[in-house]
Structures are given as C-alpha cells and as structure tokens.
C-alpha cells in the first residue's frame, strides 16, 4: 500500500467514524485509535496524536450548531475546564512513562465502559430542588429554553464533579479521546445538571481539554502530519454531515450497533494489549 492508498483508506474510515459518532452522540474519536492500531498497524502514540487532533476539530466544528440551541453553560464549562486541562496535562505526560500495551488495555476498558453507558438509559431530569451554596456563589445556576419558556436549574456537588472532571481530562490526555462519556457522567449524575445542558457544555469543554494535551503531544512528536491529515479531515467532514442529517433523533438501533462495534474494538484492544501486540 502506498501513501495515496493509505491516505484514502484512513480518510474513508475516519469519515464513517465521524458520521456515526455524530449520529449516535458518542464521538468518532473513540474508534479511530483501535482501527489505526489493530487494523492498520500504527504505533499507538501516532494513533492517539491523530485522534486527538480530530477531537479538537469535531468539538469546535459542532459548537456552532449547539450554540443556536442555547443550552450550554459557559461558567460551568470554564470552571470545570480548570480540572480537565490539568488532568489532560497529567495524562499526556504519562503517555511517555507507560508501556504501549498498558495504554491499550486502559483504552479497551474505557471503550467497554462507553459502550455500556451509551446503551444504559440515563437518569431522567429530576424536578428541581434547593440551590447549592457553593454553586450559587460561583453563579453556575442557569436556565435553558424549554417548551413552555425558560426552565431554571440548580447545580450541585461541585467538588465531586470537579474531581471526576480531572479523571476525564487525564483519560483524554492519555488516550487521545474526548472523554465525553465521563464528562457527561460527572455533570449528569454528580452535579445533576439537565441532560441537554450537560451534553452541549461537555462538547464545548472537549476542545479546550484536548488542546491542553495536544501541546504536549506536538512537543513530543506524537502528531504526524501525514497520518493526522486524513484523520482530521475525515472525522470533521463526517461529523459535520452527521450533525446536519440528524441533530435530535438518535435512532436506537444505530446506537446499539455502534455500541456493539465499540465493545468488540474494546475487547480487541485489551486482548492485543495483554498479548503484547500493541
């Protein structure tokens, strides 16, 4: 396979990954690293470098569509970004200290967890309760557009959410993924932010978090232009198309299929990691 063929193949796979990632709301980045390493034989450090770059592109590219809906909360996002960027810095630094097999195993576990989370139904938004003093002092409470006018909400458990965000950032920096699943978990379940607000705010945060590890990746030579170019362009075009096709309806069968693919890729990553092939 020469460079033209390789580039075309990576571009095609990345477009499909970006498209499905946007349709299912799981992000395309999670499947890029397993495909590049398991099927195309790339070293995992080149793969996470290319994947991380595509994560920044998707997050920033989708932001315009989300802003029109008016759900994101910039204060929650910025406050939690202190945790995610520091975590990302730590995660990116750890890449050089861990064996590639170990990184592959962690990657596999995170994939399996993401697949599980996407199939499990989320907690429904609870009726609003008392404000939390810390969240109120940080002006985090807000309102989002509902069917009958603005719906006010309160934010809770800021320290717990902040700690979970540090973990999300560290995983993002270590694995070159957006860690959207962990971010939404922290905001949904711990901080009890309404689902739509947490999803869009998480998307906003993903780009900034990824930029924090991208600097380290660049300085250490993990970002190869020849590999990152088709991945970034493919995922970007695929995800923009996916967002345009369907913003709200996310068919269940499609999500289940994508979750199954992620489950298989996760198991492959763990197997290949344990047998020392990655």
């Amino acid at each position, binding site marked *: 396979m020469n460079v033209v063929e390789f580039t075309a193949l990576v571009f095609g796979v990345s477009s499909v990954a970006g498209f499905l990632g946007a349709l299912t709301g799981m992000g395309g980045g999670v499947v890029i690293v397993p495909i590049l390493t398991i099927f*195309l034989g790339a070293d995992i450090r080149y793969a996470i470098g290319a994947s991380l770059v595509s994560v920044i592109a998707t997050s920033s590219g989708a932001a315009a569509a989300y802003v029109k809906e*008016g759900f994101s909360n910039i204060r929650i996002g910025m406050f939690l970004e202190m945790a995610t960027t520091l975590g990302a810095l730590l995660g990116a630094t750890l890449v050089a200290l861990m064996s590639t097999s170990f990184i592959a195993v962690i990657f596999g576990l995170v994939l399996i967890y993401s697949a599980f989370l996407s199939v499990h139904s989320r907690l429904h938004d609870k009726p609003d309760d008392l404000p939390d003093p810390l969240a109120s002092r940080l002006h985090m409470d807000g309102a989002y557009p509902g069917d009958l006018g603005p719906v006010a909400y309160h934010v809770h458990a800021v320290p717990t959410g902040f700690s979970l965000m540090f973990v999300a950032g560290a995983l993002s920096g270590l694995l070159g993924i957006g860690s959207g699943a962990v971010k939404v978990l922290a905001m949904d379940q711990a901080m009890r932010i309404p689902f739509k607000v947490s999803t869009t705010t998480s998307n906003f945060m993903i780009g900034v978090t990824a930029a924090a590890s991208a600097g380290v990746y660049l300085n250490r030579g993990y970002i190869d232009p020849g590999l990152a170019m088709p991945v970034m362009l493919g995922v970007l075009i695929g995800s923009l198309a996916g967002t345009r096709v369907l913003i709200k309806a996310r068919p269940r069968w499609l999500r289940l299929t994508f979750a199954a693919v992620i489950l298989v890729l996760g198991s492959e990553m763990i197997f290949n990691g344990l047998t020392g092939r990655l």
Partner: protein
Amino acid sequence: MSWPKPWTDAQMDVAIAVILRTGVLLAATIVLVGGVFYLQRYGFTVPDYRVFLGEPADLRSIPGIISDTLALRPRGIIQFGLLLLIATPIVRVTFAVAAFALQRDRVYVIVTLIVLGVLLYSLLGGAR
C-alpha cells in the same frame, strides 16, 4: 476597542461559536492544501507507522513549523494547519478572559486565566 455594554453570556456564546468555526475552517483549509502537496511529493512512497520514532525536531516546535511552512514543505504546511487548530480553543479562552473582565466578574477572570495558563504551558513546551 470599546463595547457599549458588558457582554451577556448569550452574546459571548455566539461570539465564541464564530471564533471556533472560523478557526476550524481555516485550519482544515490549510491542512487540505498541505495534504495535496504532501500526496504529490510522497504519494508513491510506502507509509510506515509501525515503529514509533517521533517527529523530526522541526515539526515539534512552533518556530520550526513556521519556517517549514515558509519554505513550502508539505509536512510543515499540514503541521501549521494543525497548530492553528490547537490554537483555536486557546483563542476562545483568551476571548472569555476579556469578556468576563468586561462583566467585572473577578472570580471567572481568575478561572479563565488559570485555564489559559495551563494551555500555554502545554503548547509552549513547559511539560516536555
């Protein structure tokens, strides 16, 4: 530049979305142009990403990437586009610092400055 009123959060959101979209489009265009040159020059060689060697020094630092781009080296041009992409969220955070300052929200000016500090530390090679 002076704004008539402190920015509301909603206006901030819209402005941020414009920054992000412009940054991504610009970066993608430059990556595409570099990609065409890259395929022209290296298209019929064999790619090898099996063994990790790391990128050459010129593709790892901002001055190196800029001088490669000015010399019209294909890999340098792609890397310059990727650098712009990485810089886009940094511009976004810088903008938020200014917007919170105009709102006279001291807590969030400090919060965004911390985030900005981490991003610059990473990009400028502090964590190498």
